[in-house]
């Protein structure tokens, strides 16, 4: 695995992603998702909302790096809030 040049930060990042996917899989098998309409302009399932929130979180981080010099963790908190809002009310 040395050739993949792992770092603790990226390892933690991918572990979180994998754990989220496994968690979502278990959640789906326990109580299957029902497509619904929230504030997003389309009908979404739980998986859709996760995808949208993760993609949005990536763009929030990129925007943060591109347009401000402030600390990145503030952007991360905004991304986390966005993730929770989309998952709950999206």
């Amino acid at each position, binding site marked *: 695995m*040395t*050739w*993949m*040049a*792992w*770092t603790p*930060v*990226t390892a933690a*990042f*991918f572990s979180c992603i994998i754990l989220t996917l496994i968690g979502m899989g278990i959640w789906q098998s326990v109580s299957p998702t029902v497509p619904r309409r929230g504030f997003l302009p*389309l*009908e979404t399932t739980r998986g859709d909302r996760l*995808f949208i929130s993760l*993609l949005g979180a*990536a*763009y929030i981080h*990129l925007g943060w*790096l*591109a347009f401000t010099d402030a600390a*990145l963790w503030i952007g991360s908190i905004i991304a986390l809030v966005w993730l929770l809002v989309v998952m709950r009310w999206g």
Partner: protein
Amino acid sequence: MNKITNNKAWFLVLPVFFIVAISAIIPLMTVVNYSVQDIFDPQTRFFVGTEWFEQVLADRRLHDALVRQIVFTLSVLFIEIPLGIAVALTLPRKGWGVSASMVLLALPLLIPWNVVGTIWQIFGRADIGLGGYVINLMGIDYNYSQNPMDAWVTVLVMDVWHWTSLIVLLCYAGLRSIPDAYYQAAKIDGASRWAIFRFIQLPKMQSVLVIGVLLRFMDSFMIYTEPFVLTGGGPGTATTFLSQFLVTIAVGQFDLGPAAAFSLIYFLIILLVCWVFYTVVMNAGKREEQ
């Protein structure tokens, strides 16, 4: 409704999962790892956090390449999609003409990309190329290796020549799947040619057009070989698109960290556009069904 579930079927998906893991997921993870480090060799590497992302996002050359790329991709789509539909509508529906036109249309698709670049490089040359020579004979000063506009037009025309066939073939397949009954009904109703196209042919072509537009979007957004062979990104940087800029960073300068950061941004752009497009079109399809 009693749904039969058999989870053993998931085992049949495992081989595909492994192939995708090896060919896509693991390399992508490696790129993410590279993007946060300064790598000199496998043993000598330093964690730099988001430095490469900041550097790449502030790079003017990247902004210029991105604008060029967007203009190019939009031009390609605006030319190839309507042209492809128009050609597909005029193709014969039976007889020997069907096979003849299929073979002719498939020819550009069978030519390797670097060969397409070489063909157009020679074809466009003012001294020995048929195309370039004839254009100059007509009194137009054309030289794709010196004039940025000429280079742009040549790259665009080359792409249209290479890929419109794909849209034609996809649309033709969509058109062929429409039963004759639809046309007969339209005839009885006295529908105009436009109405037939708008309410019968276009909706039936929708799913193949989605695939066609997505394929053309992704392909043209990642275009590398043809412009590289034809113009080498020149004159100057006039036809340097994103992937060529990326290769310059990764292979030319061997800046693996910035190249990895740039790749991820590139990936996110493609992911977003494809998702938005797919969602919009699929939702439009659902609304139409309702």
